[in-house]
């Protein structure tokens, strides 16, 4: 900022320390030798800073690639990787009409119609472009690095958005904040090849284009926002947020009396063209006219037509009282027609009610009581204050201040960002996973706070030095600073205080950067498929058991073998083991999952009946007793019981608990000690000593000695156990051929 304050050519006589610093800067600065004008200096600084932010956003996400290798993380990305591989091998038509018989045996899955293709098409497009330029990359590298690339693009969009809402200073701060914010990094780290990596870029782009359309009233920007919305619909199911926030925003503008033709053009174009484009995605289909979640947009659309019509009538009529009467009739008529239409649609079943996933956002207690599958996902838990702190750090302090500045300067754009911030923060409070959606809003609003505060403080600093040399400089730099030049020039205390506060702000932002880098490195860069721990001497120990097991499956089982496991591992087994699975992470069929849950929680002979009916050849369980790994199947077992029990009442949760407590030691419930999951997890574990000084069969994840050590399997036999006993695979024996 210092470079833009003084005019280029006439140099004021050095009479105070700040202009001496200015001369020093000019002496060493590149711009002086090039004789750039102020505007060009500012442009150079801005472009340099944005380039650095772009590069920073990319490299801060590369921790796991540097530590482990370039691989896909977690569970869902493996499905995305497999579909992208299929797309690049077989082309778009095959991909769009793909019926996959390798998952959800024996039902199969219509992949073309049940996924959001945006991510796969984006990665495939990047891959084809690179191939066209003769870079022989493997599709896996493109997939791994897609998310950081789009994160860098998001910072650019954030810059333009900040410029639109406030000014370019706020835009640059917003780009810098969002480049390293852990809330965004958690889902866009290199290797996390998931829909959100691309979707947040599409979300922010759509919002920016829409706000630009409302500000300018131009049809071109509105069309661009419709295409941005189309990209968002193709990328992620969270597009429902856009299609509800934008109508809510329009409603708020109407209520506060900010109706204008610009708003009319922007919303109409975006809604109609966006809706037609969204229907091209088979997974979305006709939901925009049939689903209850999309009805708000339609209602506001019709309300806007009524507003326009009334505006036109008022323009035609000259009699105010007649118009009031007309207004009352029309509004009453329109509201009642709308209500009747909505009622008829809902009652006849044409308009489907809100799906459980989104209804649980409005009523958070709903999932806990009614839909155990949604409640069991760890990402869907409500948010505690420490999760907020981890993901936002000082942005939580800057957010209310930014809201204050937005309220001070209310305009169409600031109203939008305030609404986006508040609604997304509420949803972030309901579900941990949605902190991601709140991150751009929080970064933008905090950037406004930072920019406005820094502007105030530098104004103080500059006004002092301006007032001291007011007689000597030719022509003030801006009219603003010269008019404020006469504040209290008798108090150097004020100027020093402002400099001190600037240093304080700089310190806070530095701490933010340190925090973000630490969180990224320690918490969000783990591939989840490769586990790391600290050994006894502080050295890093790597457990690669998952990939070992999947590779064993790939090499040592017949190609048409069917594997039964809990749904968490389905995508990985299909992608890496290349075998058919019974249930996977898509969780679209609750009864099928409940059947698997019932099999896992029954005694071995009942489970064998179920497994024979599903043609299961291998069973895979994850066991953390030897390593102390706590996300294993025994810890998830109660969810299997609950989901199974939700469909088959023979499975009752109290059978597995003792006094409401879940135990695996000697005092555990007898049904627990003999169910299939227990047997498969602890088979031969009773002979193993896991920790010095503890008896054999000591489960390190639960911290107890197991109750039933002498396990005999009648219908299954052990096929493979990985090196650290994390993944165990059992073969289902064929039925005896003698009575």
């Amino acid at each position, binding site marked *: 900022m210092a470079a833009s304050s003084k005019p280029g050519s006439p140099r004021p006589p050095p009479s105070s320390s700040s202009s001496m610093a200015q001369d020093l800067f000019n002496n060493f600065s590149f711009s002086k030798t090039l004789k750039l004008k102020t505007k060009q200096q500012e442009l150079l600084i801005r472009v340099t800073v944005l380039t650095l932010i772009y590069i920073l956003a990319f490299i801060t996400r590369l921790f796991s690639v540097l530590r482990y290798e370039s691989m896909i993380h977690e569970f869902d990305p493996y499905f995305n990787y497999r579909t992208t591989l299929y797309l690049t091998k077989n082309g778009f038509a095959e991909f769009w009409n793909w019926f996959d018989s390798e998952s959800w045996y024996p039902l199969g899955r219509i992949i073309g119609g049940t996924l959001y293709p945006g991510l796969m098409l984006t990665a495939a497009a990047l891959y084809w472009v690179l191939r066209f330029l003769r870079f022989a990359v493997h599709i896996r590298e493109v997939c791994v690095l897609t998310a950081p690339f789009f994160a860098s693009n998001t910072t650019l969009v954030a810059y333009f958005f900040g410029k639109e809402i406030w000014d370019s200073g706020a835009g640059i701060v917003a780009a810098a904040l969002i480049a390293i914010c852990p809330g965004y990094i958690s889902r866009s780290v290199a290797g996390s090849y998931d829909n959100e990596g691309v979707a947040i870029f599409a979300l922010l782009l759509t919002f920016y284009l829409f706000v630009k359309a409302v500000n300018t009233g131009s049809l071109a920007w509105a069309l661009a926002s419709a295409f941005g919305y189309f990209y968002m619909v193709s990328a992620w199911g969270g597009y429902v947020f856009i299609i509800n926030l934008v109508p809510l925003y329009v409603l708020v503008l109407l209520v506060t009396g900010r109706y204008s033709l610009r708003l009319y053009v922007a919303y109409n174009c975006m809604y109609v063209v966006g809706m037609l484009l969204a229907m091209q995605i088979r997974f979305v289909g006709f939901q925009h006219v049939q689903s209850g979640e999309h009805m708000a947009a339609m209602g506001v659309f019709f309300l806007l037509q009524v507003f326009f019509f009334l505006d036109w009538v008022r323009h035609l009529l000259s009699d105010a009282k007649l118009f009031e009467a007309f207004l009352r009739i029309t509004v009453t008529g329109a509201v009642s027609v709308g209500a009747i239409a909505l009622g008829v649609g809902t009652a006849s079943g044409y308009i489907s009610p809100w799906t459980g996933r989104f209804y649980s956002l409005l009523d958070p207690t709903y999932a806990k009581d009614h839909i155990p599958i949604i409640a069991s996902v760890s990402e869907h838990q409500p948010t505690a204050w*420490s999760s907020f702190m981890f993901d936002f750090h000082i942005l939580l*302090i800057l957010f209310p201040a930014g809201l204050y500045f937005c309220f001070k300067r209310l305009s169409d754009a600031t109203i939008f960002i305030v609404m986006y911030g508040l609604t997304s923060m509420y949803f972030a409070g309901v579900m941990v996973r949605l902190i991601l959606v709140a991150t751009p809003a929080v970064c933008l609003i905090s950037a406004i706070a930072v920019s406005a505060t820094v502007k105030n403080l530098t104004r103080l600093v500059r006004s002092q030095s301006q007032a001291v040399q007011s007689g000597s400089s030719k022509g003030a730099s801006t009219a603003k600073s010269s008019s404020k030049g006469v504040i209290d020039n008798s108090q150097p205390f004020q100027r020093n205080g402002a400099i001190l506060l600037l240093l304080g702000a700089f310190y*806070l932002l530095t701490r933010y950067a340190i925090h973000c880098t630490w969180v990224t490195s*320690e918490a969000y860069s783990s591939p989840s498929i490769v586990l790391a721990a600290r050994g006894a001497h502080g050295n890093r120990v790597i457990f690669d058991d998952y990939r070992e097991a999947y590779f064993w499956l790939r090499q040592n089982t017949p190609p048409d073998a069917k594997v039964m496991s809990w749904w968490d591992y389905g995508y990985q087994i299909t992608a890496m083991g290349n075998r058919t699975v019974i249930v996977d992470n898509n969780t679209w069929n609750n009864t099928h999952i409940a059947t698997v849950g019932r099999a896992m929680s029954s005694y071995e002979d009942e489970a064998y009946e179920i497994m024979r009916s599903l043609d299961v050849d291998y069973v895979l369980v994850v066991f953390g007793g030897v390593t102390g790994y706590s996300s294993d199947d025994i810890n998830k077992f109660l969810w299997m019981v609950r989901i199974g029990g939700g469909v088959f009442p023979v499975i009752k949760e109290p059978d597995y608990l003792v006094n409401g407590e879940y135990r695996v030691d000697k005092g555990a419930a007898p049904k627990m000690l003999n169910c299939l999951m227990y047997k498969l997890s602890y088979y031969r574990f009773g002979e193993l000593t896991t920790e010095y000084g503890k008896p054999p069969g000591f489960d390190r994840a639960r911290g107890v000695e197991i109750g039933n050590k002498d396990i005999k399997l009648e219908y299954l036999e052990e096929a493979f156990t990985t090196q650290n006993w994390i993944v165990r695979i059992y073969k289902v024996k064929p039925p005896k051929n003698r009575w």
Partner: protein
Amino acid sequence: MRAKSDNPQPQATGDYSTSSLSSATTTSIDPIYHILRILPFSFLRPPRLRLKLPSLSLPSPNLVFAFVLLTYFMVVSGIVYDIIVEPPGIGSTQDPYTGAVRPVVFMSGRVNGQYIIEGLSSGFMFLLGGIGIILLDLALDRNRPRTVKSSYAAAGISSVVLSYVMSMLFVRIKIPAYLR
């Protein structure tokens, strides 16, 4: 055409009182109006009521902002977590030697877990920091007396410093491995 709700007799709504009286002289082509004029209202006399519809006016921005800050405080304190998971207000642990029950303020062990009081105090710290920055901005407003401005500035700076220090302290207590 006049709305059907307009009776020439005294008023259903106060807003329309003047307009209906002034338009009573014009003849209406509304058949239902004529039927109503003859059938009940030729012998029934509606009473003169002074009803007024409550006038809805938009709340002032300051009020909305105060409400927004309150909601922010509640969300950031993890109130949804409190409602769904129902943790105790404050945790307790038993001293292994004396057997006395000691309170535990911060739930340790995981990032996404809290007790109610811990959530509320952290949320308050964040809000305090935000208010501190707001006070700093108010202190730079030119139209106030100097003493008010300096007291605002002092309060703002101390709020921000206190809030940052306390937030960092809370995080370090809750997650011992923070920044190491």
